[in-house]
């Protein structure tokens, strides 16, 4: 890990949905934050209100666990070294984005979080306990992973059956199961399609379906692999709303993304990977700030436009659109 400090402000579940204005710039624009985000959110009021299913926990799975990779290295059977001594701890309720070039190890890392891959050396700890002996099916109760390609998992004849698959595997039945499925479909805007065949939906909505099927499992930790890739504006807005809602409920959300705007807008911590190592780890303000641009470039990445614009104008760290607007407004007020 590089020497960048992580902001110690523990993300309280009540933090305003996804906005990074709370990480330092003036609060007077926070009320306006929702409306200044990508316009299409406004044109679909149901999106702003969407919430992620959270049936009151009778099962005792109340708080999200912490998850940690301790000295993890991993090589594929053919010898390719994908992860090199990763030390990464993600606390309950964090909103973490993992970015990096293709081949930098992002997917490999996330597959260690739910046990699909096991470290060659090092350990993976859930709430401080080694997960080595646990089957993937058990880990799936705590860590839900939504894959990048929805077509690798769709098999049911109906959308509702597809969404029910996950929770059913976890032992849920009857009315509770139905409620979960309905809530999950609601959260991604597919309620009207509950009886449709998944392959009758376009790619964008199949991807949302695959997201819903993981949401329905109510896992305290949610891992999303490229959730906005291939999505149009509406789909992307849905994803952002889902991420925000999940975070508001106290879930840990981890996402891999190439979309720096999405990352800067919705996440509070950015982990940059390169050649199997973590090279940067901090808030968007820090990671996308001018001081780290050389390192970002070395990892074949670039800051989001808002950060570049903010730097050009000397506004300080403005990785997200909302923080840029806030900072610009602040300057205007100060004369």
């Amino acid at each position, binding site marked *: 890990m590089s020497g960048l400090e992580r902001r110690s402000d523990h993300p309280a579940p009540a933090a305003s949905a996804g906005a990074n204005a709370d990480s330092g710039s003036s609060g007077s*624009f926070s009320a*306006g934050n929702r*409306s*200044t*985000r*990508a*316009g*299409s959110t406004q*044109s679909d009021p149901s999106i702003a209100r969407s919430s992620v299913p959270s049936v009151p926990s009778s099962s005792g799975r109340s708080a999200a666990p912490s998850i940690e990779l301790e000295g993890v290295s991993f090589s594929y059977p053919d010898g390719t070294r994908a992860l090199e001594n990763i030390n990464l701890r993600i606390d309950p309720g964090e909103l973490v984005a993992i970015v*990096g*070039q*293709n*081949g930098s190890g992002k997917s490999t890392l996330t597959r260690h979080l739910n046990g699909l891959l096991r470290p060659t050396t090092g350990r993976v700890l859930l709430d401080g306990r080694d997960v080595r002996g646990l089957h993937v099916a058990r880990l799936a109760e705590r860590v839900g992973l939504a894959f990048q390609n929805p077509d690798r998992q769709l098999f049911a004849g109906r959308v509702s059956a597809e969404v029910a698959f996950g929770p059913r595997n976890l032992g849920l039945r009857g009315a509770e199961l139905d409620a979960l499925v309905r809530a999950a479909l609601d959260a991604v805007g597919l309620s009207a399609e509950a009886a449709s065949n998944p392959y009758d939906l*376009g*790619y*964008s*909505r199949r991807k949302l379906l695959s997201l819903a099927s993981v949401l329905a499992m109510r896992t305290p930790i949610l891992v999303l692999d490229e959730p906005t*890739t*291939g*999505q*149009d*504006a*509406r*789909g*992307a807005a849905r994803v952002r709303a889902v991420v925000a809602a999940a975070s508001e409920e106290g879930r840990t959300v981890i996402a891999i993304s*190439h979309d*720096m*705007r999405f990352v800067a807008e919705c996440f509070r911590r950015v982990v940059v990977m390169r050649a199997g190592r973590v090279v940067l780890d901090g808030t968007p303000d820090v990671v996308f700030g001018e001081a780290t641009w050389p390192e970002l470039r070395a990892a*074949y*990445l*670039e800051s*989001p*436009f*808002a950060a*570049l*614009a903010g730097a*050009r*104008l000397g506004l300080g760290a403005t990785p997200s*659109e*909302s923080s*840029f*607007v806030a900072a*610009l*407004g602040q300057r*205007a007020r100060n004369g």
Partner: protein
Amino acid sequence: MAIELSGVRYRYAGASKAALRSIDLRLEPGCVLGVVGANESGKTTLCLVAGGFAPGVVGGRLEGSARIDGVETTSIPTHALAQHCGLLFQNAATQLSNTTATVFEEVGFGPCNLGLAVPDVIERVWWALKAVGIEDLAPRDPARLSGGQGQLVALASVLALRPPYLILDEPTSELDPAGTALVGDALVRVAAETGAGIVLVEHKTEVLARIADEVIVLAEGSVAIAGPAAAVLRDPILAELGVEPPARVALERDVRAAGLDWPAALAEALA
């Protein structure tokens, strides 16, 4: 000398609704035309129709006129379509022929099918590999490439045919930002050096902002707006039509919505 669609209406075989309702479009050689729209707005269908693959290969019913260099696509035999128009589809994995041992031979698949002499094939393969920047992938096994690499190889394979027009359906979907930039640059060079006309379907409007000359926005099978790239990508209607505008445009919009002025310093400095 252009690809021209006039009053095009198209319905897939067995479909109840027309996928394209009314399309008018013109692509000149050397020009890059961007196509954006919400998912299921007809972008892929447009690619198929403009390239002559619909109704030629996939059937269905076409009304109106779709012409490549003055010739109706319906009167071009299917096997000749590839020579008029290089078509690159979305899913990279299915683009590769899976019958070749090396990327070199894979990229040469098209020219070999055309029966070109070996020296010509070699020249085209290297040109295409170099255009996309993947010469070092030449000895590799196409079946063992990553998703992004496969997409680049598929692009090179289409380029190797040196068609006068290229129609590319989301060629950067599996690529990271570096790969996306690479493809954008490659397309600009190809258009400039070979005079190919390029139709580029993209979600990533940044790419279009950088390299497209003109942009059309599809909505429910029709052209909602069309015009020079800079103007179309700034049009506020984009968001309503389900298209994410480029970051710069979105930021400017947010700033103005908050009642602030867009700083002049940004207007010139950043493209």
